[in-house]
C-alpha cells in the first residue's frame, strides 16, 4: 500500500509541531523518520495512525482519503516505544486480540496466531504473561500483535530504544527481514541515525516540524543537503567549522586553493569533513594528538591542527605508535569536504575540481 501525507500541519496552541509536511512512501518501502526529540516525527506517525488531529493536511492510503477515518478502521500495525502489551492477557491472547476484534473464525485465528508467533520467535512463550517476559520478548510480542492481521501499513515508534545495545542491532535486522518478507509499507520513527541508515530504504531527516533531507541512506550520508543533516547523520559526527571562526585554522590551510576561488564568499561558508575521511600519516598538516578513544574496529583520534579541534577515525595499526602529545600528519582529500552556506545552512557545491562526482560514497545498509 502507498501512503501519502499531503501538507500536514499540526499546531498545539502557538506551537507548530509539524509544518506543512508532505511525504510519499512507496508500497513495500521502509522509510525512516529521523530527528532529535521534539522534531515532530512521532506527531507525524500519530497522524498516520489516527491519534493526532491535524490542523491541516490529508492522508492517502493508495488513492483513498483516510484523513478522517478513525484509527480502528485504518488496518494499521503499530509498535509502541513502550510496547503497550495488554498486561491482563497472555502472550497468545495479546497476539490474538486484533483477530478477535475483527471476528475472524476461531480456526483461522489459531492458525495466524501460531504462524505469526513463530515468525517473530515467540512461539514458545504463548502461555506466558507480560510480566514474565524480558524487554526483548515483549518487543517481539508487540511486533507479532502488530503483524498478525497483516496490516496495510506498519508503524514503528522507536521500537528498539528500550533494548540493550546488543539486542538492538539484532532486532533491527530482524525487523528488516520481516518487513521485506511480508513486503509491508513501513514507517520507522527513530532518534538513532545509525538505526535509520542501517535498515531504511529512504531516510527523512526532520527538524522543527519539517523534513530537511530525504534520500537513500547512502546518498544522505554522502551528500547531506543541509548543515543539520550533516550534523545529525553519521557517527561519530562530522567535523564542522564556520570559516569565519577563529578556530577554523585547519580547514583554512587544508582548503587554501578552494577558498581563493570562493573569494569573499569564503567568510560566509561552513565546511565539514567526516572523521573517517580524515587521514593520518607521514604527510599533511602537523597535528598533535590529544586523546585516543578505542572504538574496537577503529580508534577515534582527537587532534589539534593549526588551532582547530579535529576528530579522525583511524585503523588501530595506523595509530599504534600514537599517544597523547605525539605528532602526526593530518590530511583530507579535497573531494571529501562538504560546503554549506553559513546563512541558509544549505549545501553548496564548491567551485573547481570538487565536482559532486568526486565525492566518495561509502556504501551503507
Amino acid at each position, binding site marked *: 500500500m502507498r501512503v501519502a501525507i499531503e501538507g500536514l500541519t499540526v499546531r498545539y496552541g502557538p506551537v507548530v509541531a509539524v509544518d506543512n509536511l508532505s511525504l510519499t512512501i512507496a508500497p513495500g518501502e521502509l522509510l525512516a523518520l529521523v530527528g532529535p526529540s521534539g522534531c515532530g516525527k512521532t506527531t507525524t506517525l500519530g497522524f498516520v495512525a489516527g*491519534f493526532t488531529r491535524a490542523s491541516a493536511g490529508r492522508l492517502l492510503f493508495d488513492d483513498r482519503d483516510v484523513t478522517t477515518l478513525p484509527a*480502528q478502521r485504518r488496518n494499521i500495525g503499530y509498535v509502541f516505544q513502550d510496547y503497550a502489551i*495488554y498486561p*491482563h492477557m497472555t502472550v497468545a491472547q495479546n497476539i490474538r*486480540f486484533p483477530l478477535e476484534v475483527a471476528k475472524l473464525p476461531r480456526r483461522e485465528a489459531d492458525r495466524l496466531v501460531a504462524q505469526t508467533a513463530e515468525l517473530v520467535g515467540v512461539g514458545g512463550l504463548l502461555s506466558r504473561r*507480560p510480566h514474565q*517476559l524480558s*524487554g526483548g520478548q515483549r518487543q517481539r510480542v508487540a511486533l507479532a500483535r502488530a503483524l498478525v*492481521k497483516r496490516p496495510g501499513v506498519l508503524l514503528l515508534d522507536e521500537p528498539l530504544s528500550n533494548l540493550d545495545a546488543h539486542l538492538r542491532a539484532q532486532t533491527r535486522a530482524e525487523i528488516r527481514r520481516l518487513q521485506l518478507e511480508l513486503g509491508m509499507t513501513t514507517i520507522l520513527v527513530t532518534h538513532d541515525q545509525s538505526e535509520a541508515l542501517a535498515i531504511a530504504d529512504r531516510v527523512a531527516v526532520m527538524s522543527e516540524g519539517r523534513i530537511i533531507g530525504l534520500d537513500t541512506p547512502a546518498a544522505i550520508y554522502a551528500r547531506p543537503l543541509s548543515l543539520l543533516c550533516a550534523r545529525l547523520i553519521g557517527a561519530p559526527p562530522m567535523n564542522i567549522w564556520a570559516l569565519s571562526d577563529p578556530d577554523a585554522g585547519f580547514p583554512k590551510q587544508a582548503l587554501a586553493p578552494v577558498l581563493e576561488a570562493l573569494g569573499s564568499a569564503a567568510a560566509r561558508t561552513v565546511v565539514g569533513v567526516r572523521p573517517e575521511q580524515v587521514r593520518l600519516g607521514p604527510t599533511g598538516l602537523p597535528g598533535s594528538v590529544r586523546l585516543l578513544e578505542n572504538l574496537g574496529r577503529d580508534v577515534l583520534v582527537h587532534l589539534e591542527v593549526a588551532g582547530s579541534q579535529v576528530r579522525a577515525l583511524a585503523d588501530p595499526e595506523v595509530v599504534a605508535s600514537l599517544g597523547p602529545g605525539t605528532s602526526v600528519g593530518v590530511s583530507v582529500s579535497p573531494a571529501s569536504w562538504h560546503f554549506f552556506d553559513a546563512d541558509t545552512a544549505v549545501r553548496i557545491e564548491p567551485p573547481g575540481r570538487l565536482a559532486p562526482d568526486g565525492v566518495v560514497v561509502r556504501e551503507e545498509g
Partner: protein
Amino acid sequence: MELMELSPVQRAGRWLALALGLLFTLVPVFWVLSVAFRPAGSFTFPVGIVPSALTLDNFSIVLFGAKGIGLRPYLNAAIYGLSAALLTAIISSLAGYALARYDLRFGRALLLMFLALNFLPAAARVVPLFLLYVRTDLYDRQIGLVLAYVAGATPLGIWLMAGTIRQIPIRLEQAARIDGAGAFTVAWRILLPLAMPGVLVVATLAFVDGWNSFSLPLILTQRPEVQPYTVLLRQFVQPSEGGVDWTLLAAGSLLGVIPVLVAFALLQSRLVGAADVGGAVKG
C-alpha cells in the same frame, strides 16, 4: 515497602498497639456473637461473658418466627446493596474516565468538589432529601432509596475511579484502537479488566452502604415491605413492652453482618492487590 529492622522494644510496642486495636474492634463482635447464640431468657443479670448453653433458635425466630421480622427485610437490604453497588460502579467508572482522560475545563474543580462532598455529614442531607422525596413522589419507594444510596456513594466512587483510570497507560487504549477495537470493546476488554480492583472497591463500599444503612430508610420509607432489616430490627427494642429482646436483636444483627464479611473475604485479595498495570510499559 522495605521492612525495617526493629529493636525488641519497638517490636513489643508494635504488638501492644496491634493487640489494643484488635481488642477494641473484636470485643463488640464477640459480644454480639456470644449473645446471639444464647437461649432466650438466659440473658439476665448477672450476665456472664461465656454463654451457659448454645442454640440456633434465635436465628430461626428472627427469620421465620411469629415474633421475627422474616426474610423480606434482608432481601430488601440485598436489593438496596446490590443495586447501589451496580449503579455506583457504572456511574463512577464512566464519570471517572471522563475526568481522568479528557481535558475538561472544570475537571480539577469537579474532582475537588466530589472529594469535598464526602466530608459533608450524612445527617446534613437527610432533611432536604426527605422534603425532596415527598414532593417528587420518591418517598417510601425502593427506587427512591436506591437513588439516595447511589447519590451518596458516587462522589467518592468517581474520585477513586478517576485515580484508577489515570494509572492505566493511555497507550493501551491506543494500542487497542489500532488493533481495530471500537470504544465499547476498548472499555470492556481493556479498561474494565485493568480497572477492576478500583471498580470492586467502589462497588463494595456502595454495597455496604446500601446493606447497612439505617437512617436513610428510617426517614425515607415507612412501609415495612420496603424497609431493610436495619430498620425493622427496632421492633426488638421496645422498652414499653418489656424492654429489649437482646438475644433476637443480636441474632438479627449478626445475620446482617454475615454478607458483609463474606463479601470482604471473597474480595480481599483483589481489593488489596492493586492492578498489575506496571507490566504493560517498559521492561
